[in-house]
């Protein structure tokens, strides 16, 4: 059973009637994901590519028992949609929106924690267990079923790596995008811990970037608990201090937030450091996993 999602996952798509939500819902459904329902306030009764749409999460839950919510709701309405999903006890909510105000994220994350609900994101591409469930926006062509678990802050960086892996015949167990921050639900450390316990995953890849201390926390976890091989790739060596490199969380404000410092900590913790995606592939090939 893969982590977080699997072939039994019943997905709810919030914001399903929007341009992006409906487009991505179709791709996910075609991929084989069981999307049981969608929600858009005011659009109840409609269908999107055969998926029934409800006004409220509670109505969708009553009719279809979804267990994971993927939200395409724009930042300004994201908090309310998330609170609604949490109140209805979906076990995982995925927030694709970037630009959710910090104070809204604080409310979402605290409420989720006290309700026992996991949050992925914000600013996340979602996650996918190839061949089982796609609850995300990853391009299909880069996906292949296999044993490599990937956790990444950046969506597109994980696509880059998956593309090379798949082209080299190396499949993935689950690809988890934790999002661009600056506040996070699930962290790199949380996902590494799940991969460590996951029988479907033989090797893990950590894709990190400049800014924040999360990679150091991941390194501390790897040093203490990781038995499976971890390969890490950190990007942003050239990022100037104080510059926002796209993601809200990708800004170097202290010495330990640089790529060099993170790489050093991960190396000391026992992770293999790849300088580029091609080195990830050759490392996996040499490990023979």
């Amino acid at each position, binding site marked *: 059973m893969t982590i977080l999602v699997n072939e039994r996952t019943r997905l709810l798509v919030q914001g399903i009637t929007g341009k992006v939500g409906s487009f991505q819902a179709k791709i996910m459904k075609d991929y084989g994901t069981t999307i049981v329902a969608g929600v858009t306030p005011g659009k109840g009764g409609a269908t999107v590519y055969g998926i029934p749409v409800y006004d409220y999460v509670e109505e969708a839950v009553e009719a279809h028992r979804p267990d994971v919510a993927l939200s395409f709701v724009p930042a*300004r309405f994201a908090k309310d949609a998330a609170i609604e999903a949490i109140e209805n006890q979906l076990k995982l909510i995925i927030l*694709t929106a970037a630009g959710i105000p*910090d104070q809204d994220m604080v409310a979402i994350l605290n409420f989720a924690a006290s309700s026992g609900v996991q949050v992925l994101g914000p600013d996340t591409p979602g996650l996918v267990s190839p061949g089982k469930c796609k609850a995300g926006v990853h391009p299909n*062509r880069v996906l292949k079923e296999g044993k490599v678990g990937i956790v990444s802050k950046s969506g597109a960086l994980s*696509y880059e790596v998956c593309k090379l892996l798949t082209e080299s015949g190396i499949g993935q167990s689950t690809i988890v995008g934790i999002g661009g921050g600056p506040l996070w639900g699930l962290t790199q450390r949380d996902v590494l811990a799940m991969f460590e316990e996951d029988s479907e995953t033989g090797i893990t890849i950590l894709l990190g970037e400049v800014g924040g201390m999360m990679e150091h926390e991941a390194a501390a976890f790897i040093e203490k608990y990781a038995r499976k091989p971890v390969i890490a790739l950190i990007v942003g*060596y050239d*990022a100037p201090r104080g510059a*926002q490199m*796209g993601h809200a969380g990708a800004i170097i404000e202290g010495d330990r937030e640089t790529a060099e410092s993170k790489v050093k900590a991960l190396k000391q913790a026992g992770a293999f450091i790849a300088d580029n995606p091609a080195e990830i592939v050759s490392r996996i090939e040499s490990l023979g996993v």
Partner: protein
Amino acid sequence: MRLLEFQAKRLLREQGIPVPNSKLLISSEDLHDLSYPIVLKAQVPVGGRGKAGAIKTVFDAQEAASTLRALLNTTVKDHPVKAVLAEEKVAIEKELYLSFLIDKHANRPMVMASAAGGMDIEEVAQRSPQRIIKKHVTLCPGLPNYLPRFLAKRLGAEPHTKAFVELFSKLFYIFQDYDATLVEINPLVVTPTGLMALDAKMLLDDKARFRQGERFDEFLKEQAPLVAEAKPEAERLAEEKGITYVQLDGTVGMISDGAGTGMLALDLIKATGGEAANFCELGVFGGTETMRDAMEVVLANSQTKALLISLIGGLTRMDEVAEGIVAYLQQNEVCVPLVVRMCGTEEERGKEMLRAVGIQTLDDLPTAVRTAVSRAKG
């Protein structure tokens, strides 16, 4: 304490919740300035008044006088009636029920609502409880009162506890109300007359602009002429167009459709012996317009000798960004070599659109980087 109906309704009215026009009657001398029909309601702190005969509709002054006298002489469920509320009679289409209460089983506030409101609500609750919707409400504890007192003690400012408590809650109010990510007073000084903020620093969350709009705009407008810094043309343009752009020192221009893949491209450019001219990414939902604007911004930097556009679409649709590239090329003459790597969502359509204007896309990022680096060197 249970409020009498007229007190509770006064509270509602003060909050702007509509209630019928009314007048409190203590004796028959108060029976003037009323337009009939009116409803006379005994003000006693018990429920079920309608069924106990303590609510009567009257149609003229004479009937009102006799009914009022009778009500003031009765006792409703052991409560002698001392006051009667006279209310205008309202045309009713539907009676609903709505309440908040503390649910002692769940230790949480609960909202109850029903489409079967009115006199029989107790019966509805007993016979068909499913007709009453019950929902819990979650509250956060917020700022506890002990905290500023505790801090005042720890800071050695105990003699000023009262002032500190007040300042503390006001500062927190600003923090929340303005969507701040930092409010800082340093130093907060103790003077012979009390506390005072000698310096202040505040960071406001740009992501909250959608709800802070005017306030944030006013701050910006006010400080604009005061913080004018010399910015490169491309950065100024990027700000104007809302494009993520960081100017660097090299010659290889770079546009990506993701932050991580963009930083990877920068690292690869360096590893390949080149120097990036900038970092620029389209961000979530970057489409046609964003792509066109990004090209305008990056090419405004005169150091750019080649432009690498690296696209691996998930949310970003290759057909939309291809449209942006084509639109830019149609309106502008591009004097530097253009290298496009394109794959991902809707890539077939995107590639086709670019082929139509003579652009062959690459599929592999390292190859695209090598090409761009060597073109930049001429």
